[in-house]
């Protein structure tokens, strides 16, 4: 599996690592809001990761975390300004959650684990994969909640976010366990009989 798929599926930030859950739960009430936050997170994560990777040899070990947070905060503020200038309706709905992208541990984790150690190519693939994984999770949750709202109004409210996200995570775990069992079964079948 290449780095992109690994970051997006096997290490999916939301479904497997359970990172970035605050925006995931708060902004997934409609598909449009979810898409807005997914794009904002992608720009912040990819921009910060590429920049950190480019300057990684200039950043002293002792002050690397303040430097990373400064880079993430700068990209977050740029995205926030861009939304306020060019997508004002969306900005009014999700601005608060765009601002707190800066505290999203999913982003700091990718920068500390990958961008601060690896070259531009690998960093870019990892950042795009992680972003795609997060986008997929928040869009699925957004679509599920928006569809369920028709017969089940609670789905659009905060408790609905926990219920729907919990059921989706349970589904992901069941699928993961089934695949693991299938793989183990296949390996066992290939073993020669003693």
């Amino acid at each position, binding site marked *: 599996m290449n780095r992109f798929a690994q970051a997006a599926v096997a290490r999916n930030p939301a479904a497997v690592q359970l990172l970035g859950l605050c925006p995931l739960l*708060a902004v997934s009430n409609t598909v449009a809001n979810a898409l807005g936050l997914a794009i904002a997170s992608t720009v912040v994560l990819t921009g910060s990761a590429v920049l950190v990777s480019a300057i990684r040899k200039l950043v*002293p070990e002792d002050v690397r975390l303040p430097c990373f947070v400064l880079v993430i905060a700068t990209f977050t503020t740029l995205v926030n300004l861009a939304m306020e200038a060019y997508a004002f309706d969306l900005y009014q709905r999700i601005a*608060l959650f765009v601002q707190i992208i800066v505290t999203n541990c999913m982003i700091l984790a990718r920068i500390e684990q990958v961008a601060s150690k690896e070259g531009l190519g690998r960093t870019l693939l990892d950042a795009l994969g992680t972003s795609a994984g997060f986008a997929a999770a928040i869009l699925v949750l957004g679509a599920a909640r928006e569809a369920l709202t028709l017969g089940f109004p609670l789905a659009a409210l905060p408790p609905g976010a926990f219920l729907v996200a919990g059921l989706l995570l349970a589904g992901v775990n069941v699928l993961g366990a089934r695949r693991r069992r299938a793989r183990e079964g296949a390996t066992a079948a290939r073993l020669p009989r003693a």
Partner: protein
Amino acid sequence: MRALLRNVAALAALTLLAGAALAWFADLTEDDVARNRLEAETRILRDLIGAETFAGDHKGRPYGEDLVFCERDVVVLRVAGSGYGGGFRLAVALDLDGTITGVRVLDHVETPGFGDILNAPSAWLDSFTTGDAHAVTGATITSQAVIEAVSRAVDRVRLEEMCPP
């Protein structure tokens, strides 16, 4: 000592770069942001006092920062307050008897969910027009700050001075 200098130099250089990038982009987007905010405020004011009354420009007699609009049978005051999450600005519409005919929130940063009572259409904001607005459970600080700001607006109305016939 050398390590310390290196750390300080790296942080200072990165901070300068970040500041420069933000200043450049803030300058670039300034006009669009200002236009968006004015348009949003205009939409809220049209909703408050009717599209045919409010043309879009803030005509009327300026009366400090307070007066937005004063014509025919309506005066709109702008008043600021401080809620749970930070500052907010209200537009309060009064008729010439000094009766509140509508309250709208121009901008606020209250917690989503708890602050939803401030987003029109809101039965709670409409309750000001019946003179029967109460604090809201779960949003005590927000709702009390709005009630306080509205009563400040009402106290400050000087209709004869603001809207001479």
